[in-house]
């Protein structure tokens, strides 16, 4: 208590010190920046989850091959969640003399809980709505064309006569991307009454739920702790279709990257301020020690002062973070309209804790060193002997930085790349600074007077110059990553979804239809045509062990084992695929080979050399696992989990799958195509593409918002880094003015000094950002051929040199204008 009072008194006395104010400002900004970033990121992630929720028609769900026990719905009602039930199954529809196999979704009236069905009436006018009432049915365009029906007509499904009340244009949870049949939505009550869901039906049942995040989480926790029925699995927004998942993963990585860099910037600013504070305190500590204060008490007093400063500063940071996040939210409200409006408080408090950790981690080593100051230093500082007792403390900021990187990135790869890049930048900057100082000593005597004075000034503050160059380089590197590399990565991602990305798939194409179909597509203006064989089959054995006798732990594996699988074959490795184990079989290996995707490897715990047996048509084929592929599911190309070699697979019964791009406004051409090739299933994936584009755009908006706050943190690093030498500079300028130095001389010298520092930092930062960008693009974001833009980076390096020079000169203005007499008295 006594110590706390003493610390508070000490803080009140020292509050005028610029270092202490900078330290407080750094902490406020650190917490505010971290808090704003985390709060916005949480909200945006919630927005994305909301977006993903539309893709599953609710916030969470449970899917099962059997009707779901009532306990799951009862628990949901108890948790205050809204619920809807659906069942999907194949069924043949009859109308006049025509029949068509349909993918039917039978739902209750509440479906979908998130998003709406997009429908069209008889006149083609669009509207949105929920599931059809009893006696009604929605058919998609392909179903209408195949059955030669229109809205208002009647058809039979499962022996029940239903009226087509609307055309189904788009279903938010658009079902499987490669759904095999045209789609229909009917009432669950009708399906039950028709006996379509009875024992032996092939229906897949879903229970979809929606509600507040807390209630959803409660139900989720409960469901995860409960034994699920055989074959049942949770449907979560994170587990939407492969392409969407990949988009969410990338979006999350972008946001975490920006948040992390802001945190590191703040850490650097805190470290610099603490260093400066400790330097100033060393004489005072020597005096206290000389007056009989114990080392422990000195440390207690320092920690108490720092704590007394940190608590209100962190509180202010939290308040600022919440205020700014709310403001940003209101300003950008139109962009994220579907996101829940409540302000999440937890991220700001977590940011305060992180800010405190950064403060302790970065400020502790220089302050703890103060305990080393011996009482004799009161007489002469040179008597201070450097002990190595506290050297290990310098590992703390490193550990805190690594901890931050780890906690914010939650990906070992992203964390590793960033840590290695920033460490590389720091090392190169420090080495270059040492080289510059060595050159300064040699070049200075023959150089222009201003340059000579500037070089001499750099050389005079050796250690400070190295610290400044390193911190400036790290700060600038983080800023360049944020301002140039991240947007460029986003642009690269956007380009992957360029306007001519295939947006239609055609299924069930027969061998003899291929040529004619290609010509017909050309006539309607389609391009980017790509055709692949498609065989449907079942996995029957792994290493000669029948699958139904295997105990499969992974629910997904069990599901895959029960389902029909889609297989294809290719002689050359398709684009967006990378072999990560084994080797690509080529067109004709000696034995039948299968290449598997990493998900299959993990689900079935497969390894190279294992044998898989498939039953395709009336034939069995046994293939050795020859390679494991990493597939970029975000590429929107036709990709397969299983690829056989053509030599052994060509004779298997198969159809062809075509993907192509067709711009909007060709509905009539497509309708004709549907009529001419009535066996074909045409699938529009524009909805999915639009969703991914929307995610990219939202991430872009979020990054721009976060960037503003990160820039503030960057500016603070710059200011703290330049202020690090302010005391020495002030004294030096005063002396030089007294000795007759002209203002222009001092300004020119400062300009040379800061320009050199800025150029060194800018170049190192640009190199570091380019390297990290290249690495991140390939290893984390998987953007093929991504190269960070060299010219903007070079320009930014130059701009950094100019900004550092101008800021340095601005800092010198007051010093060179003050009469030297006053300066001497101040110093």
């Amino acid at each position, binding site marked *: 208590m006594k110590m706390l009072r003493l610390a508070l008194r000490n803080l009140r006395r020292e509050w005028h010190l610029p270092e202490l104010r900078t330290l407080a400002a750094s902490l406020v900004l650190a917490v505010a920046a971290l808090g704003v970033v985390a709060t916005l990121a949480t909200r945006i992630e919630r927005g994305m989850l909301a977006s993903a929720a539309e893709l599953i028609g609710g916030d969470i769900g449970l899917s099962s091959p059997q009707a779901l026990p009532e306990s799951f719905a009862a628990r949901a009602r108890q948790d205050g969640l809204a619920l809807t039930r659906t069942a999907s199954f194949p069924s043949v529809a009859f109308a006049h003399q025509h029949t068509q196999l349909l993918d039917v979704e039978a739902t209750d009236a509440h479906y979908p809980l998130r998003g709406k069905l997009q429908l069209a009436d008889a006149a083609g006018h669009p509207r949105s709505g929920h599931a059809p009432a009893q006696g009604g049915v929605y058919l998609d365009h392909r179903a209408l064309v195949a059955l030669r029906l229109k809205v208002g007509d009647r058809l039979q499904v499962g022996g029940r006569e239903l009226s087509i009340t609307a055309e189904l244009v788009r279903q938010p949870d658009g079902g499987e991307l490669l759904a095999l049949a045209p789609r229909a939505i009917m009432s669950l009550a009708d399906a039950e009454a028709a006996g379509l869901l009875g024992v032996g039906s092939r229906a897949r049942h879903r229970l979809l739920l929606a509600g507040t995040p807390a209630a959803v989480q409660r139900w989720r926790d409960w469901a995860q702790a409960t034994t699920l029925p055989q074959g049942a699995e949770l449907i979560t927004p994170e587990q939407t279709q492969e392409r969407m998942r990949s988009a969410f993963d990338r979006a999350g990585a972008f946001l975490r990257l920006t948040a992390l860099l802001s945190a590191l910037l703040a850490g650097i600013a805190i470290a610099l301020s603490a260093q400066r504070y400790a330097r100033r305190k060393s004489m005072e500590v020597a005096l206290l020690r000389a007056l009989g204060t114990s080392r422990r008490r000195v440390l207690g007093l320092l920690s108490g002062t720092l704590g007394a400063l940190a608590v209100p500063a962190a509180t202010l940071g939290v308040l600022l973070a919440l205020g700014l996040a709310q403001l940003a939210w209101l300003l950008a409200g139109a962009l994220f309209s579907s996101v829940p409006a409540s302000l999440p408080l937890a991220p700001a408090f977590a940011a305060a804790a992180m800010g405190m950790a950064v403060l302790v981690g970065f400020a502790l080593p220089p302050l703890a060193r103060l305990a080393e100051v011996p009482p004799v230093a009161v007489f002469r500082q*040179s008597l201070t002997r450097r002990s190595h007792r506290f050297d290990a403390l310098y590992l703390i900021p490193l550990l805190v930085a690594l901890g931050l990187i780890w906690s914010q990135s939650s990906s070992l790869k992203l964390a590793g790349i960033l840590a290695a890049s920033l460490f590389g930048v720091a090392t190169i900057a420090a080495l270059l600074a040492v080289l510059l100082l060595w050159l300064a000593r040699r070049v200075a005597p023959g150089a222009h007077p201003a340059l000579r004075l500037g070089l001499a000034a750099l050389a005079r503050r*050796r250690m400070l110059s190295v610290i400044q160059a390193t911190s400036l380089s790290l700060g600038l590197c983080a800023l360049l990553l944020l301002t140039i590399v991240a947007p460029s990565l986003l642009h690269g991602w956007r380009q992957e979804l360029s306007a001519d990305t295939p947006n239609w798939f055609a299924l069930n194409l027969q061998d003899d239809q291929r040529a004619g179909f290609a010509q017909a597509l050309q006539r309607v203006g389609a391009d980017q045509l790509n055709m692949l064989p498609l065989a449907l089959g079942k996995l029957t054995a792994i290493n000669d062990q029948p699958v139904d006798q295997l105990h499969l732990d992974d629910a997904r594996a069990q599901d895959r084992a029960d389902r029909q699988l889609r297989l294809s074959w290719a002689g050359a490795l398709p684009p967006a695929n990378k072999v990560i184990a084994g080797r690509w079989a080529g067109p004709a290996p000696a034995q039948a080979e299968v290449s598997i995707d990493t998900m299959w490897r993990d689900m079935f715990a497969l390894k190279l050399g294992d044998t898989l047996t498939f039953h395709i048509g009336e034939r069995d084929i046994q293939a050795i696992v020859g390679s494991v592929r990493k597939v970029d599911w975000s590429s929107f190309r036709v990709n397969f989990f299983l690829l056989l070699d053509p030599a052994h697979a060509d004779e298997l019964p198969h159809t062809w799958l075509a993907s192509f791009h067709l711009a909007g406004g060709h509905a009539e051409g497509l309708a004709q195509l549907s009529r001419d090739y009535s066996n074909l299933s045409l699938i529009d994936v524009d909805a999915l593409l639009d969703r991914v584009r929307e995610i990219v755009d939202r991430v872009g908006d979020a990054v721009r918002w976060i960037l503003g706050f990160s820039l503030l943190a960057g500016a603070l690093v710059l200011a703290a880094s330049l202020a690090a030498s302010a005391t020495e500079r002030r004294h030096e300028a005063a*002396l030089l003015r007294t000795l007759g130095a002209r*203002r222009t001389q001092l300004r020119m010298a400062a300009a040379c000094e800061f320009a050199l520092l800025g150029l060194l930092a800018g170049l190192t930062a640009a190199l570091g950002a380019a390297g990290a960008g290249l690495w991140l693009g390939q290893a984390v974001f998987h953007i093929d051929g991504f190269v960070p833009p060299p010219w903007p980076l070079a320009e930014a390096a130059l701009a950094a040199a100019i900004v550092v020079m101008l800021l340095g000169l601005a800092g010198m203005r007051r010093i060179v204008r003050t009469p030297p007499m006053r300066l001497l008295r101040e110093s």
Partner: protein
Amino acid sequence: MRAPEGRLDILSGVDLRIMAGESFAIVGVSGSGKTTLLGLLAGLDTPDAGAITFDGHALHRLDEEARADLRRRLVGFVFQSFHLLPALTAEENVMLPLELEGSRDARSRAREALDAVGLSPRRRHYPAQLSGGEQQRVAIARAFVHRPRVLFADEPTGNLDQRTGHHISDLLFALNHDHHTTLVLVTHDTTLAARCQRGIELDEGRVVPGVRA
């Protein structure tokens, strides 16, 4: 000057003339205005009223840049607390005025100056590694290295023991004599002041009449 309490006269009615080559002492108790007068004479500051002429230049009419130019060419300083730059070696500290002039042989001239004050062996030492007397000798070398016409010394022995103080004052007077440099000395040490040819005593900013230090 203006202070919260109203107008404050730090110096008033000071009328004096210092001749080239002579040694001149300004004495007085703490707060009597000695350092302020020294600063005005050296062109570090300007008076609100009155006139100061330095080698034919009206200091009170010159702007800061012009005064800095005069200081660089004609003035040397020695301070009570030495004011050496801690990050520079003794030699680099002495080189400073020459570097400001753009001199190309700054290093060799600095070595000569250090030699003259007997510190050649310690030229690579930093101020923190030197004793108070040694630091002041470096400061004197720096003050003389560019051959100034006037040397202003503000309590040059104030931080030193008596014996070291004697050595330093001997050095100052020797250089004053050898180079015919005007020496203006601010001190409250009457023995030191007595070694000067002339002087004044200040009391509350005014010259004490009839006192010749």
